[in-house]
């Protein structure tokens, strides 16, 4: 392009370039898809609510009050404030090496999280993966080391960027954060979680999900899930199992509950006794279409999901045991009376034995209704009533990992 061309000619060329770039971006971005099921993005929610108001659409499954999220607060309910911009961190991953700038901080003290936007100058994947957000506690003492996060509102915006990055993931690449350094922050953390998502497109909307932690922590290899039944389920599973989506922001121990429902994947994490963070993603054929995160009251959680959600405690969650008087407290779940609770061993070494006690947590005086079940034998029982149930694992050393599902 010559500088001697007239300004109008140069403007025309720039306009053409922009048109090509915009078309290229639109192609890469894909067509905009909206759905009235599983509201996960603003247009979807808007459509759903407007449909409900007009009395024509499906009943709303999300309380509009739940939708609202404080603009300046993250999912932890902590106020987000701009941080010192420009503090450099070194981000080393399996496929990326670059520097990032601290972008914001949320919270105070130990709860402080700092988001880091990093760009990779020598990203071998091209420009698809442009930046990502890391959150690290300022004091660097978080168990499990450094964490990624996704659930602050700022991160949700970043995840829109991730969607472009997900295009790389579609090729089968996963990204592992091996080390991250920032000043005095400890580096022997981890963390990335890859999710292998199987979907039976031809049959029911059952989705099997495997969470695999990669990085510095030794964890079992990906757990096999039961492929969904239905026509072509095997073929679909084979086709989609190769599609890995690196979901940044989910440290292994931070996931409480994972709910799959009609193509929507939701990850529920406890924030406090009364609130949970719900991260919802719509995944279509291995591709992340939309995602959002919101903080909701725990009591409103069932309203978010249609029908009977499948609730599955992930192995890593149960492994976070705490010692109690009569054994190891493995966790608790909320369930309905009559539901079948199934515990199957996943992480228990064959031959080892564990006693499992399940008791109602809703009523402290209620006696355990199920006890002395020895793993690794799978057990199934029907829960007597609605409420919370506590799972205790006793007489053993070290954490035990197993899987709980409710049918």
């Amino acid at each position, binding site marked *: 392009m010559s500088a001697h061309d007239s300004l109008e000619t140069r403007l*025309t060329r720039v306009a053409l370039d922009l048109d090509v770039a915009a078309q290229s971006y639109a192609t890469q971005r894909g067509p*905009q898809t909206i*759905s009235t099921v599983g509201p996960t993005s603003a247009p979807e929610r808007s459509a759903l609510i407007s449909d409900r108001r007009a009395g024509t659409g499906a009943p709303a499954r999300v309380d509009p009050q739940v939708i609202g999220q404080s603009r300046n607060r993250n999912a932890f309910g902590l106020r987000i404030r701009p941080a010192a911009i420009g503090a450099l961190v070194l981000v080393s991953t399996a496929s990326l090496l670059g520097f990032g700038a601290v972008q914001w901080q949320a919270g105070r003290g130990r709860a402080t999280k700092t988001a880091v936007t990093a760009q990779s100058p020598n990203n071998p994947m091209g420009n698809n993966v442009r930046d990502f957000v890391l959150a690290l506690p300022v004091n660097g003492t978080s168990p499990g080391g450094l964490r990624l996060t996704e659930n602050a509102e700022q991160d949700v915006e970043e995840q829109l960027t991730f969607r472009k990055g997900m295009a790389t993931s579609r090729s089968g690449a996963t990204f592992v954060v091996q080390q991250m350094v920032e000043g005095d922050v400890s580096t022997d953390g981890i963390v990335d979680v890859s999710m292998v998502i199987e979907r039976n497109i031809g049959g029911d909307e059952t989705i099997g999900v495997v969470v695999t932690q990669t990085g510095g922590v030794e964890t079992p290899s990906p757990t096999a899930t039961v492929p969904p039944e239905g026509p072509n389920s095997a073929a679909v599973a084979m086709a989609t199992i190769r599609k890995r989506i690196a979901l940044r922001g989910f440290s292994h121990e931070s996931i409480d509950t994972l709910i799959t429902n009609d193509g929507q994947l939701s990850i529920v994490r406890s924030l406090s006794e009364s609130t949970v963070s719900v991260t919802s993603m719509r995944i279509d054929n291995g591709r992340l279409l939309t995602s959002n995160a919101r903080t909701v009251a725990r009591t409103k959680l069932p309203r978010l999901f249609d029908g009977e959600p499948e609730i599955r405690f992930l192995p890593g969650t149960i492994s976070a045991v705490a010692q109690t008087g009569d054994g190891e407290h493995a966790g608790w779940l909320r369930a309905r009376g009559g539901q079948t609770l199934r515990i199957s061993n996943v992480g228990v070494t064959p031959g080892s034995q564990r006693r499992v006690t399940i008791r109602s947590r809703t009523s402290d005086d209620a006696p355990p209704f199920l006890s002395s079940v020895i793993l690794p034998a799978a057990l199934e029982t029907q829960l007597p009533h609605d409420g919370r149930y506590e799972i205790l694992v006793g007489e053993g050393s070290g954490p035990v990992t197993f899987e709980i599902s409710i049918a």
Partner: protein
Amino acid sequence: MSTLRERTTIPVPGVDTSIGRSREYKAKSFGNGASVVQKTEESKFNAFVNNEGLRLRRVFTARYGVEVGGDVHAEAMAWAWEHWEALQAMANPVGYLYRVAQSSARPHRRWLRRTTFPAQMPDRWHLDGDNSLIDSMRALTDTQRISVLMVHGYNSTYAEVAEVLDCSISAVTNHVHRGLAALRRQLNAEEQ
């Protein structure tokens, strides 16, 4: 489990999305004539996207850059689909969608993360190197940049630009005039 699933694929101007573009419409049953009405609405909406939508995309690209512009354009088109009936009744639907896109672009401006023109990573889009002009355009005001690019880059009429910006034609004239003058001034200064 939900059995209701209604999906709509918004066409992208200039991009062939015909594959997998079987659109299912909202389950409003009006008898046998419903499909005809729906087909008509579909063709109307597609025409709108391919004409006014294309113009809007260029405007958004000029204002917000390739990436954010593309995103807000998609948001605006999704909004148009959701409110298609109301939009048709508006006096200036293009101008309204421009305002919708402004709201959609607001999150991109938070946290000191300003939108940039032409993109955050210009090399990504293979802009062929008229960096001086692009830098100069970046220095213009949003309305000046939109007006200059639409009028002299895309050969839009002043009236079309005025419709999008929801301002008078004379205002667009001023934007173009001042924008061109500023560009010439900056480019001349660089050459000297």
